[in-house]
């Protein structure tokens, strides 16, 4: 696991939040989100992005002011066993974070790209890559982001270019016809697709977030948010009331382009590139899960990677023929799985810092107090012995 602790540049993080994170929100999420929020789905995404940004500011404050990493801070505040317990949940959390886009990609391949259902064996190479990537560490994975970003950028523009002409923006009206409740319900059920900053908690040692670096990340995330909001707006504008029936939005949003009548489905080139971006997200999430386990158990990373990837493989194989049961499970328990680890804990980090400072201050004072006492007793002993000597002389 030595490479896990290599540095990650702010440019890499900028590209990750701007181009990789939006890609995972383009599969099932638009249909699922608009099922509850209707044509106001994009407002829910805006709300979610703002909350995520607050989480980043909290993590940024922590990274800037803390002397220790996330795990050590948890250890010092909550004790080591509790910290290990939390990290264990983070390992499951990141495994689910990896599972969602990975499973969506598998389903898209299964339903859209192939004529008839085929052997699951064809997806096994993806799991081999996941296993390998879990051992290479974050540095290499974030460098891959740098390599693929021009392609992802072109693909995103390409899809937007093909989709826009078929959009009817009147479908976005009326705004908030049924109030804020459906939007909040939808947000609450889809937390698993957001909260991308959680990965930064594991990278506190690896990133150097000076002011410019934070600005870069915020800019990257803002760009990512803009692209995903645009995607949602476009999807609702194109499909209107039928948006919630369009399961694999990524493969559908651009298909009404007139270009295809002459050239065929050229958008599949762009879709394939966005697949690649999704895979990078899965690799980073899987690596995060393995890292959490490694911090807890301190055993061979290969074994831990094998456990995580094996669980993902078995999960995918079980649910590939009844996918909606797993998605409804994730949505039903979204608040319990994601809210504490994705929002509550990161938002409490400044409080942890303050408590940590208080504790350190108390310890320091105690230490100083002890030192003073010792000095005084030594002084007393010295004076007593001097007085004794004087009396003896007399």
């Amino acid at each position, binding site marked *: 696991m030595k490479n896990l602790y290599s540095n990650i540049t702010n440019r890499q993080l900028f590209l990750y939040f701007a181009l990789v994170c939006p890609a995972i929100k383009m599969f099932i999420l638009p249909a699922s989100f608009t099922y509850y929020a209707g044509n106001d789905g994009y407002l829910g995404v805006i709300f979610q992005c703002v909350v995520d940004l607050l989480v980043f500011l909290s993590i940024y404050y922590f990274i800037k002011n803390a002397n220790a990493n996330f795990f050590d801070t948890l250890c010092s505040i909550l004790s080591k066993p509790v910290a290990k317990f939390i990290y264990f949940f983070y390992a499951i959390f990141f495994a689910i974070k990896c599972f969602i886009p990975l499973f969506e990609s598998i389903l898209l391949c299964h*339903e*859209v790209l*192939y*004529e*008839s*259902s*085929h*052997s699951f*064996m*064809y997806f*096994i*190479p993806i799991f*081999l890559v996941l296993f390998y990537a879990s051992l290479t560490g974050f540095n290499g994975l974030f460098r891959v982001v740098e390599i693929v970003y021009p392609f992802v950028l072109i693909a995103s523009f390409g899809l937007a270019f093909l989709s826009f002409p078929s959009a009817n923006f*009147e479908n976005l*009206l*009326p705004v908030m*016809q049924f109030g804020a409740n459906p939007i909040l319900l939808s947000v609450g059920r889809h937390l698993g697709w957001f909260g991308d900053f959680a990965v930064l908690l594991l990278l506190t040692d690896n990133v150097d977030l000076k002011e410019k670096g934070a600005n870069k990340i915020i800019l990257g995330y803002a760009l990512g948010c803009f692209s995903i909001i645009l995607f949602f707006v476009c999807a609702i504008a194109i*499909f*209107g*009331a*039928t948006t919630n*029936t369009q399961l*694999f939005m990524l493969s559908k949003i651009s*298909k*009404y382009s007139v270009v295809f*009548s002459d050239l065929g489905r050229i958008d599949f080139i762009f879709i394939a590139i966005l697949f690649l971006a999704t895979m990078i997200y899965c690799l980073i999430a899987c690596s995060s899960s393995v890292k959490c386990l490694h911090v807890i158990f301190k055993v061979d990373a290969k074994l831990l990677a094998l456990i995580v990837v094996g669980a993902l493989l078995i999960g995918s194989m079980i649910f590939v023929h009844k996918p909606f049961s797993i998605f409804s499970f994730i949505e039903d328990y979204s608040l319990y799985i994601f809210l504490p680890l994705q929002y509550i804990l990161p938002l409490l980090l400044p409080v942890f810092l303050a408590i940590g400072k208080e504790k350190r201050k108390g310890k320091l004072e105690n230490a100083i107090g002890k030192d003073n006492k010792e000095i005084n007793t030594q002084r007393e002993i010295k004076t007593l012995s001097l007085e004794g000597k004087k009396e003896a002389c007399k």
Partner: protein
Amino acid sequence: MIKSKKFIAIILVFAFVFGVFLINEYSLITADKIAIVVGLGIDKVEDEYLLSAQVVIPPSATKQENDKTNNTLLFSKGKTVAETVDKLFLGTGWYPKLNFCNIIVMSEEVAKEGVLNSLEYFLRSEKVMDSCILLIAKDCLSSTLLKASTPLDNVSSYTLQKILFEEGIQTSVIQTNIKDFYERILSGYVSNVVPTGSILEKSVDASEKDTQSALLGQYDLFDLTTSAIFNADKLQGFLDKNDTRVYNLVAEKSVETTLEFTDFNTDLNKDITYSLQIIKENKKIDYSLKNNVPTMTIDLEYKVKMIDSSYLEDEERANVVSLPLDQELLNSGEEKITKKFEHLFATIKNLNCDIFGVGKKLNAYSHKTWDEYINYDTFYNYPSKIDYQINLTLTTLKEDKP
């Protein structure tokens, strides 16, 4: 040691991936087993669906004599459309490739019963493009339309698609795809307009076998200039050629549309015929709830050009470059087009259809007032209460002025 371990790992991964490919279970069906379905027809016969599939087999590269694409019409019956699709290819052994099916034709009977009953399969399936266009076969079975062949194409569904998609003739025909149809139903406000297709009566006497015109007479020509209107997914009635064109003037771009006028009585007591082409349009449509009545006000201003007329005598015609267009003709034109609009409005009100989506617009732009107005018990009756107002102005280009 480490190097040899890596080498073994690479060999194992390679062997695994290679092995997976050697299993020969690619789920990719070879081209010689795929039947490319280019058009589907749905009819109802004795309470069962009759599915007609137009299948094309690409011509062989070595085949020289007849290089036209072969096409065949296959039939099957079933209680549901999904069953008919399954049955259709069980008998032939060819795998149905539905991705290239760009047109679905339905008979009037199926449309009256409710289009969604038969469309549901296509909406749920990922195998069919929901951009595929809908067509209602009028006065004939859908299979009759698919069987027909025109002088230029022997695959009828290609011809139908060309007519519906070709720029230039779009102002005379309607385009509706499955997705739009379904979206309008789900949105709950807009009635659907779907093109109807029929085969024109052969104008040439086929008994004249030796002449070229007789050869043309062996083929069919389609008429797609009329349309069917739906309330929810049920067929309510038809719009004739004029109504369809007038609908397009409002709903689509009208530039390059040609308007024909007959029986214009001149001062000399001579009836003339003339055609005006729209060069430029200025369209303003307003939706409001005036006095608690949903109102659609259409302000249209067309710049027109005369492109043909029987106005001039032959000797006069030879001396003019551009046909003159006087105010009298324009006024008469305005009057006649307005009457056509009024005819369309009366038709759709009678059929209780909101083909212009007045309800949807009012809900979108003045949601509160619309919500107060609409009575959800009689929701589907609101189209008959809509008040349509049309203000039309025809002006001419400077060079056409007398």
